[in-house]
């Protein structure tokens, strides 16, 4: 067996010079410290993305976009297609877990100040990937064309439409018209399976190249240590195999969730029906949705909801450019403000999500 593998490797090496790559990877090291565990969440996010692509392609074999066929095709997938239920349920769960692991990855990078020079672009590309992930979530939510997805898309696009000046054009762009119709479904389907995956792949490529090029970031306290005091492990094969081990655990988790909590379908969307009671967006939008409820109708001359959206927009923008205004961390100095802001953001998200959930 070993001989066969080796001869196959030699065959490829002769043509692709794989030795150079293996040599490069073999020289890459991952720091070992008390917070090393957070390094794995980038790989876990990648795993969920791969799962999403694989299951998404399988669903595409049967899914038919269109207000007359979408719901029925999902119903068909769930009841008639062999393991269709499993593929759709895994797709649904992996989508949520991707966002969760990406958020954890983002906060771990934030608190370790791994975004500091020279990794500003890695941070920005990562944030873009997170936003794209949310875009995947929003666009994919409508595809089953059920009551919940229909009205959630209506509410979600209405919120986007409340943004001054650019809101209305964005809303029309999202909906493919003035209201949520079959045109919205076709459009969001296009976003979900073509536009977003294309952009995501490019940004992900940049993100991974940057990581490989710049190596894994060391926390400030580790970076300060003498080279001899630092503990590391080779990226290949040690870290990669550990990543793979975690992927297998995640695969088990996905299977358990898909079997015990399969994706639901609900009732087919009816544009003339009333919105189902207690309509809520996906959990990762819930904190924003809930926050907007607390804004009064008007604050001075501006509508409360508009102000809320603008504030969130400003907060996300500031968050995205944190490597550029957190100069202290880039200089290798300690910046407590960043930690306080991060903790406040986490508390805010958790509390508002819980309030939104129980509301």
């Amino acid at each position, binding site marked *: 067996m070993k001989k066969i593998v080796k001869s196959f490797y030699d065959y490829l090496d002769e043509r692709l010079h794989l030795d150079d790559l293996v040599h490069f990877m073999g020289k890459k090291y991952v720091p070992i410290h008390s917070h090393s565990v957070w390094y794995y969440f980038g790989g876990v996010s990648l795993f969920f993305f791969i799962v999403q692509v694989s299951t998404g392609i399988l669903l595409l074999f049967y899914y038919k976009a269109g207000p007359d066929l979408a719901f029925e095709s999902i*119903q068909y997938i*769930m*009841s008639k297609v062999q393991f269709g*239920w*499993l593929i759709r349920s895994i797709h649904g769960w992996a989508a949520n877990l991707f966002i969760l692991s990406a958020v954890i990855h983002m906060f771990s990078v934030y608190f370790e100040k791994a975004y500091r020079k020279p990794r500003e672009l890695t941070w920005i590309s990562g944030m873009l990937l997170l936003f794209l992930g949310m875009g995947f979530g929003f666009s994919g939510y409508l595809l089953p064309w059920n009551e919940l997805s229909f009205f959630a898309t209506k509410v979600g696009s209405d919120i986007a439409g409340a943004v001054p000046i650019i809101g209305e054009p964005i809303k029309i762009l999202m909906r493919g018209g003035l209201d949520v119709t079959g045109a919205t479904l076709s459009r969001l389907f296009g976003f979900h399976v073509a536009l977003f995956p294309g952009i995501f792949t490019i940004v992900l490529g940049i993100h991974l190249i940057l990581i490989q090029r710049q190596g894994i970031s060391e926390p400030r306290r580790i970076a300060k240590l003498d080279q001899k005091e630092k503990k590391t*492990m*080779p990226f290949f*094969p*040690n870290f990669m*195999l*550990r990543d*793979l*081990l975690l992927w*297998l*655990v995640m*695969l*088990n988790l996905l*299977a*358990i969730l898909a*079997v015990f*909590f*399969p994706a639901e*379908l609900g009732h087919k969307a009816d544009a003339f029906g009333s919105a189902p009671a207690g309509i809520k967006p996906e959990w990762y939008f819930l904190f924003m949705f809930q926050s907007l409820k607390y804004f009064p109708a008007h604050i001075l001359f501006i509508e409360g909801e508009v102000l809320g959206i603008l504030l969130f927009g400003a907060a996300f923008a500031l968050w995205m450019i944190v490597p550029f205004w957190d100069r202290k961390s880039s200089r290798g100095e300690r910046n407590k403000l960043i930690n306080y802001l991060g903790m406040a953001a986490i508390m805010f998200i958790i509390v508002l999500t819980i309030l939104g959930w129980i509301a």
Partner: protein
Amino acid sequence: MKKIIFIIFTLVLLNGYFSLKAQTLKSDDQCYLCHEQLGGVADLFKKDIHFQKGISCAGCHGGNSKSDDMLEAMSKASGYLGVPKGDDISLRCANCHAKKEMMQKYGSHLPTNQLELLKASVHGKLSTTGKEKIVQCTTCHNAHGIVSVKSPASPVYPLNVPNTCGKCHSNAKFMQTYNPKIAVDQVAKYRTSVHGMLNAKGDPKPAECASCHGSHGIRAVADTKSQVYALNIPETCSTCHSDAQYMAGYKIPTDQFAKYTRSVHGKQLLEKHDISAPACNSCHGNHGATPPEVASVSKVCGTCHALNADLFSSSPHKQAFDKAKLPECETCHSNHEIMPATKAMLGVSKEAVCSKCHTETKSTKGYFVAQKMRNYVDSLDVSEVLALKLINEAEQKGMEISEAKFKMRDVHQAKLEARTMVHSFNEEKFKEVVVGKGLSVSKAAVTESQAAIADYFFRRYGLVLSILITSLLALTLYMYIKKIEEKQASKL
């Protein structure tokens, strides 16, 4: 003989009393004295109950009835009002008839809300001229010759009511000024009804127009307060028909209303307020109310239950029932106390209506057909219960079972169709519906839900297996990592 002499003596005395009273009034009432010379209304007024109670012309027309000077008596200064016109007519009547103390003064116990009721009625609300309402008191009671309602001479005496109402209601030209679509054949139909025929024979007890529609407060049929609004009809009819004392002598039962309230029709109408459900008039007619005869029962029921009636008419039972002079629908379903048609009516058990005629020894063909038909229905019921149980179980397990659930609508539809098809009394046709449309679908739903439940367990067993394989792989990988790391450590 003694009795006849007593009656004649009494009549002579009464005549003397009223003549004396009229004479007394004559001497005081200058209006009457003058108008008597002229004839006409004064002659009528002489018979008027108001005249007999001592009420002068001035009671309605105003003026000074004691003055023999015509100019003075009929002057404005004397309060002369002249001939009332339009709505003023009813208001003049109400001057006394709406005042209890005034009525008591003349020894009357009549109600004093007539004008109030009239104003709320369809007659008191509608108008073509815009100046006066359709009906004034005098329209029905006359003006100068008003007599007691109990008097056969009164236009509102029960025997006269149909013609009084018919004066307008049978006049198409007059009625179309108010409602071009309104029927004008009510009196003609009434005369064909049992009520109308008895009325024509001089019996004042059977219902006439006012018995059902009311008198002063007549409302439109569509008005929920009307006595003949669909929901109120059974109660209105029962006023007489449930009164055993009142109905004594007519030799008909008085439990129809009680039975109707227990019936499927009664519950639908009186409890669920479904005005499309039949009330008394739906089967008996309203103005031409007559009990449907044996031959016409199925036609009456068939106005709503059209398919059932058609199937029955072309079934072998039609001829058999006609021969035995059995009322068609009523024989199995009864009349006033019609209960929901359940499967218990079908078959050969004691409760089944089929067994009334078909037994193992008598009319045996029908006996075996009924038995088979009941078996089909029972099989469908059993299969439906099982299918619903399994669908529910599969749903509880989170399985996608909407298609099977949707199929159960066909089973329900087949059961509904079977309730109609049973009236063909044709086993093959019945089987086609119950087995072909119902049982086959129900069985398919059972199979689908069983497969869904089996799939539920397959998923769990599959999960256990996949977890075992993945975990084994993970464990191998872990061991491999350990091995590599140990190797690396030993090199250092």
